[in-house]
């Protein structure tokens, strides 16, 4: 790691990425394969290779823009970028770190509201029952986003096909799972 310390960006957010994930933004030479292969790049404000460049500059304004970007939230972690990167840079792992930091610093892009609400509803569901309760997830998500009408036609169709459980599956050791959430949330206010 010390050999990288003279590279730009190492003291700022790029340095934090390195410290937390061992992902070296300095290794990116801007070939653009990640952005070319990313299935979501056309919906992003900055495609993956541009995020890498922004972090390389070490410019605090650009770093702030990364944490406020929509890109980090529409990233699906499909791992295409990592698999095609000639420098084997684990961009998805970096994206996980950036998302968590963006949330902790309350910088997440308002346009990602629904995406984040879905993740929160999902985690809330398993926090209380140990397993995902799909009806609970939908109701909680709708309450968070007020997207009441979306997918309303889907539920009865799923029900008819036996794809929705009316009653949640409750595991016995719910306190064990709740304790995992408590400990993991200590460092993290999500």
């Amino acid at each position: 790691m010390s050999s990288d310390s003279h590279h730009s960006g190492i003291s700022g957010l790029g340095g934090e990425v390195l410290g937390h994930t061992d992902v070296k933004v300095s290794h990116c030479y801007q070939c653009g394969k990640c952005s070319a292969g990313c299935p979501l790049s056309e919906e992003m404000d900055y495609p993956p290779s541009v995020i890498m460049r922004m972090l390389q500059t070490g410019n605090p304004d650009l770093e702030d823009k990364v944490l406020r970007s929509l890109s980090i939230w529409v990233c699906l972690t499909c791992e295409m970028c990592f698999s095609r990167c000639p420098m084997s840079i684990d961009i998805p792992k970096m994206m996980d770190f950036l998302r968590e930091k963006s949330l902790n610093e309350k910088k997440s892009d308002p346009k990602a509201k629904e995406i984040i609400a879905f993740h929160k509803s999902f985690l809330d569901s398993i926090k209380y029952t140990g397993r995902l309760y799909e009806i609970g997830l939908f109701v909680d998500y709708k309450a968070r986003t007020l997207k009441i009408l979306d997918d309303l036609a889907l539920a009865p169709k799923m029900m008819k096909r036996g794809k929705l459980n009316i009653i949640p599956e409750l595991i016995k050791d719910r306190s064990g799972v709740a304790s995992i959430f408590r400990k993991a949330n200590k460092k993290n206010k999500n």
Partner: protein
Amino acid sequence: MTLGFYPGCSLKGSSREYAESVLAVAEAFDIHLEEIKDWNCCGATAAHNMNKELSLALPARILSLAEKQGLTELVVPCAACYSRLTVTKHELSENPALKAVVTEANDLAYTGSVNVLNIVQMLDKYIIPNLEGKVVKPFDHKVACYYGCLLVRPHEILKFDREEDPQSMDALMLKAGATPIDWAFKTECCGAGLSVSRTSSVGRLSGKIMGDAKDRGAEAIIVACPMCHSNLDMRRDAINSYLGEKVDIPVLYITQAIGLAIGLDRKTLGLQRHFVKVSV
């Protein structure tokens, strides 16, 4: 013989036909799948997007329970669960400090000894050697084997098949009597976890996959992941509106296709649960 079994949440709910077909095919080959007692959700995309420690502690609890139950091999049909369990095993073996934190959070012994198998590995190891004599009704259709993301990526950790143009499902389907086609979208993402929160993206991504399969003459799409299935099947309206035409190619789990080939009943395999009618 007995193998460990982690169904995961989807297989208990919206993808229960995947569980039904996995269990039915296993039973037909005298394999008992023993479910992990009191298993929890792996945390899926939500956990690793929001909280790293949680994203490792939840799968670690599952692996610890499997160890406690004396299971040495664990069949994980959901590609997303398979990915989370395998990534967790990898991270904890690479990083002792992280392992200490996660073990403390779980309060359960964890050694990382359980061997995690995805469904293709399970079929390849335990079903295929005995398949030939059992095929009574070859699945004689042109199929597009769709692997999605999490079955093959990242190769550095999963070490399963090729990342570009993988072959393992094609080889299995060939043995079930199908004709796998060459196509370009085997490992393109379907839109996965954005299904509810950004359905239009899923319509576009899954639409491209469906469009290519159709253009190349596929009569069925074969999958090994509940998220791929629900996006390609349940989100067909969004796909059709992206494509501007009505495409009625059915999407089958690989265990449903193999189940049909060995003569299992369509209802046992849960084919009636699909949104797009399974006409093959």
